[in-house]
């Protein structure tokens, strides 16, 4: 089967624990794997961005203790737990040696960008996502991830033409009250005001976009995601097979839903 990997699966198979990686591998085995530039954009916005931010916090004075404190002061939400976990793992690996910490970061910048493509047959570009064009660049040896400003007012990608193309399919979501009300509200407004598809709303509509991308790729494409709750109503609406890894402790069996 052709499986389109969403962002949660890419993150889990690259940065997840050994158990999670095994569970993901179990469901992916034997399938042809695909991804999209929209997912790549989300990956850069989250994982790669977190790594660059963490390194930036470290570079302020290369003080290992102060860096740890700065995580709690300057990184928030989901990123904070991720960054903190990564940092303390790096400290352990490096033996608390500043030089080794630095070397580990520099290695990870290469690995984190490369591993996204591991095992992927093709990355479809259906939305022209601007965030997917980001790459870690180096200024005097210091990594930088240039920002991309996704706003309602500016057109920097092809997300609106994509929604236009998928208008009919997207309309079916409005009839399904199992789809998140936030998504339905945005789609309702966007029918008359195109810019409602852009900016922060685009991020809110992320799962919907990925589901529509799978639909556009063809009936033979399923989606692999660890986010069953949000993807189930979308996949049910469009008749897409949803594959979810089983992260239950001690079990690695796959569930086709």
């Amino acid at each position, binding site marked *: 089967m052709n499986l389109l990997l969403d962002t949660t699966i890419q993150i889990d198979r690259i940065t997840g624990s050994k158990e999670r990686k095994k569970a993901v591998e179990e469901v992916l085995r034997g399938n042809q794997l695909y991804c999209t530039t929209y997912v790549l954009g989300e990956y850069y916005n989250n994982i790669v961005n977190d790594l660059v931010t963490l390194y930036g916090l470290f570079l302020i004075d290369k003080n290992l203790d102060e860096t740890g404190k700065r995580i709690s002061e300057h990184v928030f939400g989901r990123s904070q737990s991720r960054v903190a976990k*990564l940092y303390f*793992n790096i400290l*352990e690996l490096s033996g608390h040696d500043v030089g080794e910490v630095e*070397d580990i970061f*520099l290695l*990870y910048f290469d690995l984190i960008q490369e591993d996204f493509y591991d095992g992927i047959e093709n990355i479809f570009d259906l939305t022209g996502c601007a965030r997917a064009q980001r790459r870690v660049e180096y200024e005097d040896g210091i990594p930088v991830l240039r920002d991309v400003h996704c706003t309602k007012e500016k057109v920097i990608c092809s997300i609106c033409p994509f929604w236009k193309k998928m208008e009919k399919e997207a309309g079916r979501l409005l009839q399904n009250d199992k789809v998140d009300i936030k998504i339905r509200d945005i789609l309702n407004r966007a029918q008359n005001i195109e810019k409602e598809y852009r900016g922060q709303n685009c991020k809110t509509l992320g799962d919907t976009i990925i589901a529509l991308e799978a639909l556009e790729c063809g009936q033979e494409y399923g989606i692999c995601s660890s986010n069953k709750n949000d993807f189930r109503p979308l996949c049910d609406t469009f008749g897409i097979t949803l594959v979810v890894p089983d992260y239950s402790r001690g079990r690695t069996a796959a569930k086709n839903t």
Partner: protein
Amino acid sequence: MAVLQSENIDFGLPNKTTFLDESALIHHLLSLRVDALEKKIFEKTDNLEERLYHVENTMGETGANPILWNDMDFSLDGGFLQVKKKEKTMPDITEQNTRAECEKIVSRAIEFLTDWDESQDIKLQIQYAAIIVGKIEMIKKKEFIQSSEIRKKICTLLRNVIRLNITDEVFTKVQIDLLKKGFQLLISLDTKKEDMLQLNRQFRKEGLMTMPSWE
């Protein structure tokens, strides 16, 4: 006194020029001979260069490989232009020495990896791993490794792989072979970023963690 006399040869001086002594006369004759030889060599070199230029242009037209001038050593020997392809050499003697030292460390590390391969005991594995990590730390300090970002990263990768996976299960033969491959890359002159990325992919394919978890 010595007199240079000649009826029909031009020595650059009037006939029957007198020199203080024989050695002064010989010195003059020798300098004339050197000038003449030099002129001959330069003419030959110009001729050869012209021919080389013509050959290069012809090769360019036919799409054949161009001569890589920077890869050639030219020398004049007995009036003949010698052209040799440069041997790939280390930039300086210090780096040659540290590469030799690195080769010794790698050789020793591979011996231990071979012993490790033959052992199926996880306690012994932990001991071998400590030795190998020590070898990595030793080799990483060498100028030959420090002068290359890619070699440094490979050291970091090897160290990470061992430390992240050592207590889980006994390493398989394939996994240990990959560690050996990593060490070989450290002393290879042609190691590129793609070699490091490929090694990472191979580690991951064989079920080894190359980064800690952060989710």
